[in-house]
C-alpha cells in the first residue's frame, strides 16, 4: 500500500471563515495547517471535540468548503481551488459523504427509491427494470432486505439506523472511491452503532473504499480506523497507527480524550486547568491546547509545537513530549 500514490493528499490545509464580533469582523481558522494522506482501502479516523475543525476538514474533501491555502490532491489531481462545476462534479463522483444526522440527510417528501434512482441513472447509466434492480441491490448491500420494499418507503417510515443505511447506499450509488463519514454513528442508538460500523467495514473490503472517518469517540476510531489523527483547535495534536495512538497516547490532549472514553480504564494524572474552547482567531500563537494543558510551559504559549515523529508512523505536536524546550514538564504523566 505504501508503494501506490495516496488517493487523498492534503498538505498544510488552512481554512478560514469570517466571523462577526463586537469589534467588527475577524477571521477564524477552524483548520490550521493540517497535512495527511489517505490511500484507497484505508481508513483515517479523525478525532477531536466539538469545534476542533474535523467536520470542516471533512467537508473540504468534497469541496463544500474551499481551502484558503495549502494543497489538496484527490485522485492525483489538484482540487484545492477547483471552482468549475464540471470539475467539482468529477471530484464528487470519486468522493462522497455520509452525514451525521440521518433525520436531516434524507428529503422527507421523497421515497427511498426516489433518492437513489436519479443517482444510479446519472452515474451508472441504468434505466428501466435494470435501474429498479440496481436500486434494490444497493439497498440490500447496505442491509435493507428486501430492497424492493425499502425502495417504496418514505424516510419517516424508517428508524435512524435504517435511514443511515439509506444514506450510505446513496453515497455508494455514485460508485465512489472515497467516503467522508462525518460522525455517521453519533446520532444513532447505541445498540445499532456497531452494526453500521461493521457495514462500513464490509463495504471497505468489498469496494476497496477509502474513508475519512470523523468521530469524537476514540473507541470507534480505534475499531474502524487504520490510522488516527487527533485534532484540537484546528491543528493536528497527534497522529499515527490507531493502535499505537490509543494504546500509548503521547499528547496530553489524547490522554485527556482517552480518560474520558468510558470503559477504557485509562486514567491520567494532573488536573485539567479549564475547559474553555480553544482560541481560533487568526494570529494566535503557540499551542491551541496550552490553556488546558497540565504540562504547559512558557514556550507553549508562544511557539507552535511542530509535528515530530516519536515512533515509526507516530507523530506528536507537543513541546513537553518531544522536548523542544529546556524546561521540564510540570507534572509527570504515566499512562496505565
Amino acid at each position, binding site marked *: 500500500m505504501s508503494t501506490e500514490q495516496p488517493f487523498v493528499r492534503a498538505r498544510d490545509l488552512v481554512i478560514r471563515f469570517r466571523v462577526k464580533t463586537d469589534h467588527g469582523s475577524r477571521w477564524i481558522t477552524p483548520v490550521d495547517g493540517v497535512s495527511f494522506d489517505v490511500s484507497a482501502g484505508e481508513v483515517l479516523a479523525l478525532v477531536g471535540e466539538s469545534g476542533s475543525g474535523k467536520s470542516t476538514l471533512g467537508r473540504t474533501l*468534497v469541496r*463544500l468548503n474551499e481551502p484558503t491555502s495549502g494543497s489538496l490532491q484527490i485522485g492525483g489531481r489538484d482540487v484545492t481551488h477547483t471552482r468549475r*462545476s464540471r470539475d467539482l*462534479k468529477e471530484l*464528487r*463522483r470519486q468522493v*462522497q*459523504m455520509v*452525514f*451525521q*444526522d440521518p433525520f*436531516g*440527510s*434524507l*428529503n*422527507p*417528501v*421523497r421515497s427511498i427509491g426516489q433518492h437513489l434512482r*436519479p*443517482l444510479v441513472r*446519472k*452515474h451508472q447509466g441504468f434505466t428501466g427494470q435494470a435501474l429498479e434492480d440496481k436500486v434494490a441491490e444497493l439497498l440490500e448491500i447496505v442491509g435493507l432486505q428486501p430492497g*424492493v*420494499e425499502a425502495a*417504496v*418507503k*418514505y424516510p419517516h*417510515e424508517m428508524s435512524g439506523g435504517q435511514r443511515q443505511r439509506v*444514506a450510505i447506499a*446513496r453515497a455508494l*450509488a*455514485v460508485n465512489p472511491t472515497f467516503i467522508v463519514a462525518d460522525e455517521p454513528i453519533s446520532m444513532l442508538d447505541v445498540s445499532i452503532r456497531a452494526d453500521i460500523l461493521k457495514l462500513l467495514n464490509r463495504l471497505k473490503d468489498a469496494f476497496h473504499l477509502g474513508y475519512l472517518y470523523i468521530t469524537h469517540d476514540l473507541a470507534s476510531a480505534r475499531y474502524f480506523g487504520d490510522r488516527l489523527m487527533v485534532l484540537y483547535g484546528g491543528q493536528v495534536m497527534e497522529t499515527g497507527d490507531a493502535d499505537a495512538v490509543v494504546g500509548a497516547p503521547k499528547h496530553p490532549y489524547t490522554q485527556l480524550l482517552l480518560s474520558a472514553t468510558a470503559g477504557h480504564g485509562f486514567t491520567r494524572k494532573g488536573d485539567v486547568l479549564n475547559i474553555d474552547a480553544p482560541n481560533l482567531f487568526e494570529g494566535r500563537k503557540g499551542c491551541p491546547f496550552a490553556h488546558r494543558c497540565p504540562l504547559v510551559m512558557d514556550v507553549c504559549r508562544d511557539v507552535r509545537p511542530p509535528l515530530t515523529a516519536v515512533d515509526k508512523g507516530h507523530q506528536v505536536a507537543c513541546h513537553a513530549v518531544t522536548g523542544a524546550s529546556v524546561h521540564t514538564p510540570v507534572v509527570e504523566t504515566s499512562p496505565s
Partner: protein
Amino acid sequence: MSDQPQAPVQPAASQPALPQKIRRPRPQWLQTLARVFREPKALIGFIILALFILIAIFAPLLATHDPMQEGALPPLQPPSKQFLFGTTGYGDDVFTQWVYATRTSLSIGFQVAVIATALSVILGVYSGFKGGKVDAVVNWVTQVMLVLPGYPLIIMISSYIPNAGSEAIVWVLGLTSWPGAARMKRAQAMTYRTRDFVLAAKLGGFSDFRNMLAEVFPNMMSLVFNTFISMISWGIFGEAFLRFLGIGSTHTPSWGNMLNQAQNGNALMQGAWWWFIPPGLSITLVILSLTLINYGIDEVSNPRLQKPLKLPKALRRKLQAAAGEEGM
C-alpha cells in the same frame, strides 16, 4: 392459569402467516390533502368555494336573461319569480349580472394567484437558494416593492391604462402582489440551502436548478398552496376594490362593477338592497371560504396547532385531581 394466556395468543400467532405484499404508500402530499379535507374548517371553506366555482362554470346555463341586453327591463324591481334577485336601477337583471360577475371575479382571482404565486416562488426560491449577488439584487427589488404603498401604486398604474379590461387588472394585481410571498419563500429556501439532504444532492452531481425543483420545492408545497389561496382572495378583493373606485372598464360584469353601479345608482338611498347584497355577500363569502381553507391547511401542516387528544371525561377528572394533589 395456563389456559388463559393461550386464548389471546392464538389470533396473534396466526397474523404473520398472512401473505405480506409490498404496499406502495400514498405520496405524502396526497395524505396531507386528505387530512386537510378532514379538517371541518377547511371542508366548509371548500364547499363554499366549490359552490361559487360551479356557478362560475355554469354561468350561461344559470343566467335567466341576456347579459348583453342592457336597460331593457323595468328598473328597480324587487326579487320575484321573473327576476330572481330583482333588477338594477338601470334595468338589468341582478341575478344574470351576478352569475356572470362570479365568473369574471373568480377567474381574475385565479389568474392573479397564478401570476403572483409563480413570481414569488421563482424569485423567492431562486434568490434564497442561490444566495450571493443574485439574492442581493432580487432581495433589493423585493424590498423596494414592499416599501411602495400597495393601494396607491395599483390605482396609479391602473389609471394609466385607459379602459382597462380584466386582463390589465390581472396583470396589475399579479405583478404588484408577489413581494411579501417571495420574501417568505426566500426565507424558507435559505433554511433548505444548508440542509444535509440538499448538500447530499449537490454531492450527487445534480445542478442547482434540479435541486431547487426536486428537493426544495416539494418541501414548500404547503407554503405555496397557502400563498396561492391568499392570492386568490387578494385578486378577488383587489378587483372589486379597483372596479368600485371606477377604474377600468365598467362594462365587464364583475362584483366590483356591480357595487360601483349600485353606489352610483343610489341603491342604498332607494332601499334596493337586492342590488348590492349579492355582490357584497359573495365577496365576503369567497374570501371567508379561502381563509377557512388556509386555516385548515395551517392546522394540518403545523403540528403545534393540532388539538390535544380528547380523553374520556372520567379520565380527565382523574388527571385533574391528581394534578391538583401535586400542587400544580
